[in-house]
Each structure stands twice: as C-alpha cells, then as structure tokens.
C-alpha cells in the first residue's frame, strides 16, 4: 500500500433498510485525480462523510498515509492532512474570507489554545492565509464575510481552506456545482495543477470536467462500485452505460 495515499476497504453503512454503502473499496494514488461518479442517491456524499469521519461506517476500514484512521474523528483526520470541501458550502458565515482561511492556518500550526494575542495582528496567520486567497483568486474579497460571498466564491474559499491546511489528499464534493461555465473552466484548470500537490478524490456531476481531469473513475450505484478504471474503460463499460450513462444520454 506504499503507493496509495488513501485506501478505503470494504466500507458498509446501512440506514434502516437502505444500504447506503455496500462494500466499497477505493484507492487514491499520489498525483492522481480519482473521480467518483454515480446517479443521484447513489451514496456518494455518504461515502465522503465516512472517509472524512463525520459518519461512522458499520464495517470496513480507512487507511490514510499508511495509518488506520477508521476510529478517528473528523478533526483528527483533518489534522493528518485530509482536506475536504462540502457539497453545500460550509463556512463560518460571520467570519471574513480571510479569517476562514486563518482558522485553517491556525489549526495547521497546531495551537488553538492560545488565549491572548489578537489574531488579526498575527502575521504568521494572516500572511499564509492571504497567500492562499491569492492562489484561489479571492484576494480582493479577503475582508468580505463568507455569508456575503457569491456561490462560486464560497467554493473557491473552501478550496483555499483545504490548501491552507496543507492537505495531503483532497476530498472535493461537487466543487463545480452551481458554477457558471466560465467558473467551471477556471476551476478545472486549477484542479489540474493541484493534483501535483496532493491527489484528489473528486465527486462531480459535471461530466466534461470529470473526463477532462480524471486519471481514474469509479462508478457508484446503489452503494456499490459497479466499475472502476480509466476514462476510456468507463466510457466503454456496458454496465456503466446501462446503469448510469444510458440514463444520462
């Protein structure tokens, strides 16, 4: 497993009679974008939650950088470098964009139990945070409260936060959702460069983006991976065409 950053083995989760995750195994290797696609209700977000630690699976394991993190909580996994963005933007709405990123910088530096010293005057927090905003093109909006940012800007901010964490793998849950064609294009280009920093597990509905970015694709239907492979393999897989793409076309 030396060449896998993130290794998910046989995850299972049921809600009542519903098998939301039914024996899923996925690998994420260095430098790759691994896209996870599937129709609505296939259990993609539930799976992301289990990987990030906010939902406990019934069985199965998650290894990250060779360590079994199955029993760790969200915060502990994030501290180890598992950065995520949310399907529906999840930010501290009253904080400015800058303070949202500073929180990640602060966490990366490891001390949230400092009771004195105003954060806004702390260059070791503001400067790296500002740098991340610049990278994601949000520098001009640094002082705007997250609640007042546009939809696309919030997406960018989520990514800036994940970057600021120094993540060693990214979990992005539909980062393109609700973005215009221009925004999608820019973000696609950005993610393309990002993969060299850390591999990305990408949940996305925008098939143009998926086919442009993904090194490998896994298809999730009713909680099961029905196919996994390169872009071409997936395009030509009859089962995928029947279960998923057929429905789309």
């Amino acid at each position: 497993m030396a060449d896998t950053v993130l290794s998910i083995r046989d995850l299972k989760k049921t809600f009542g009679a519903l098998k939301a995750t039914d024996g899923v195994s996925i690998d994420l290797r260095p430098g790759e974008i691994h896209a996870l696609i599937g129709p609505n209700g296939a259990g993609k977000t539930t799976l992301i939650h289990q990987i990030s630690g906010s939902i406990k699976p019934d069985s199965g394991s998650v290894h990250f950088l060779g360590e079994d993190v199955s029993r760790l909580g969200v915060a502990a996994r994030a501290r180890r470098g598992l950065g995520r963005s949310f399907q529906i933007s999840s930010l501290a709405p009253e904080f400015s964009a800058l303070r949202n990123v500073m929180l990640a910088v602060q966490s990366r530096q490891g001390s949230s139990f400092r009771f004195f010293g105003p954060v806004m005057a702390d260059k070791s927090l503001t400067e790296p945070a500002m740098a991340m905003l610049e990278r994601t093109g949000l520098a001009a909006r640094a002082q705007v409260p997250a609640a007042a940012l546009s939809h696309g800007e919030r997406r960018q901010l989520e990514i800036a936060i994940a970057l600021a964490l120094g993540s060693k793998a990214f979990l992005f849950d539909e980062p393109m959702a609700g973005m215009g064609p221009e925004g999608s294009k820019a973000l696609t280009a950005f993610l393309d460069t990002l993969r060299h920093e850390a591999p990305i597990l990408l949940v996305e509905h925008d098939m143009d983006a998926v086919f442009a970015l993904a090194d490998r694709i896994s298809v999730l239907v009713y909680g099961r991976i029905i196919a996994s492979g390169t872009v071409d393999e997936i395009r030509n897989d009859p089962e995928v065409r029947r279960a998923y793409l057929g429905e789309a076309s």
Partner: protein
Amino acid sequence: MRDGQAMSRETLINILLAAALLALPFVAIAMEEPFYITLATRMAILALAAVGLNIALGLGGLISFGHAAFFGIGGYVAGIFASHAFNMEPMFSAPFEFSGSDQMPVIWLAAMLVSVFVAIPIGAISLRTSGVYFIMITLAFAQMIYYFAISWPAYGGEDGLSIITRNGFPGVNTANPLSFFLLCYGVLAVALLMFWLIQNSRFGAALQAGRQNEQRLAAVGIAPFRIRLVAFAISAAITGLAGALFADLNRFVSPSMLSWHMSGELIVLIILGGTARLFGPVAGAVLFVLFEFALGGITEHWQFFLGLILLGVVLFARGGLIGLVAGKARHG
C-alpha cells in the same frame, strides 16, 4: 464603511457605560443616597457573572441554562470559607489542616477552582448533546446541585449561610461600600479585558467558528469538543468568582442563588444588553437592576411590567441595548 462606524460607535457606548457605572457611586455620595452604591455594586457583580456566561453563550453559542450552579458554588465557597474562619473550625484535616479563610484572594481562587472542577464533568457530559438538549441538561445539573444544597444541613440548607463580616482584601477596607464597589469594578474590568483578549485570540477564533459552523471547525482539524469544554470551564470560573462577590455583597448565600430563575436571569442580562457583545452583560445588568429597583418601588405588580419590558426587548430590539444603539453586530 458602515461597519467601521458601527464599531467606533459601539466602542463609544462601551466607554460611556463603563464611565457611568464608575460614576454612579460618586453621584450617590454627592446626593447622599448611599444605597445607590450597593445598587452599583450589584450591577457590577451581576455583569461579571454574565461576562462569564457570555464566553460560553455569546462566543461559543453554548446556551447554558445552568450557570446559576457556578454562581451558587462561588457563593457557597465564600460562605463556607468565611464561616469556618469565623468559628475557627477546620474544614478538613487531611492532607493538611484547613480552617477556611476570610481573605478574598484565597476565596476567589477557591471559588474559581471549585467552579472549574464542577464544570468539567458537567461540560464533558453536556457537550455530547447540542441545541435544546444542551439547554436542558445544563438545567438538570443545576437542579441537582440546587436540591443538594437545600437538603444538605451542614451549611444551612434552605435557610442559607450568613457571612458575619464581609471578607477582607489586603489593603482595602471592604466594609466601606465604596471600597467594595471599586474592588468589584476592578474585577469586572479585568474580566472584560480577558473577554476581549479571548474574543480576538486563536482560541476565540476557534470558539466562534464552532458557534457559526461546527462542521467547518472540525473539517479544518480543530475538535469542537475540547475548545468548548475549556470555554465552558473558563465561563464557569468567572461566574463562580461573581458568585463569591455576590455572597460578600449580601453577606449571605442561599440555595436561591442556585435556582433556575437565577440561570434564567443571567441569560436575560446577556440578551438584554446584546449577545456576544463585549459590554452586553454590563448594559444588561445596569438595565435589569434599574428596572427591578424602579418598578419594585412603583407597584406591587412589578414583575408583570418587567415581563412586558423583556418581551418588548426580544420582539422589537433585537441585538439588545447595544445592538439598538450601535447597530448591527460587526463581522470579522
């Protein structure tokens, strides 16, 4: 720059409030109405208790409906220490003999330590829940302590415990109402400074982010539970300290300091002044004590009108007094 203006306006109001509260006893002396000193002291102490609660409630969004527990614990520490010191009976003999104390610094430290000691298990259990459950479980713990205090005969039970002479402070004649007021005012000022520091610190950033969005805080790798537990303990310590001062003001402590009405009143002080505002508790305490005092003198049915006023504040003056005068809460 509307925000900037609102900010400076809030600062101005804060300065005015601080000055007014400080001036009140001197006005009282000039008017030969010494009782107003007591009133001002009461305002300062209740404000201090609410500053404590404001750390949990305002910054952390932890609506504790059981902070009277810490207020009462602080009061009982003052009462019990003083009574042992007065009667020269040892409180405990192992590991060392301790006969209480009538010195405020010792009592304050003990009040804060005991409050923290109680707050940690209460917080550890309560913080597993959220929302209404948190409100109610903190209330339940406070009720446990309340009933314990009522039925525990050693320190007076329901009858409470008198402090024969007000506890001392090195270099200050605490029996003098003005000196005692200044002491309380000083403690309040230190607490406000601490609140301000915490609000702007890394810890404060994490705490406030947790209130706004718990999921986000965890996703950046900061576990909300530990942040909140520490905030809850700090909050309890300050409210406990206020309780010790309150007992010394009244020279008396009783289970009513632990009652759920008291918890409710502390919340009322904060909302009345403005939630999560630095000076919200001060504004709230000044207003509440004034209402209580003025209405109580006018009509036997004063509680009816107090209720109407509080209702009016919630419905029509969102953001409390400071919100009303200073405008919307600042972001940042």
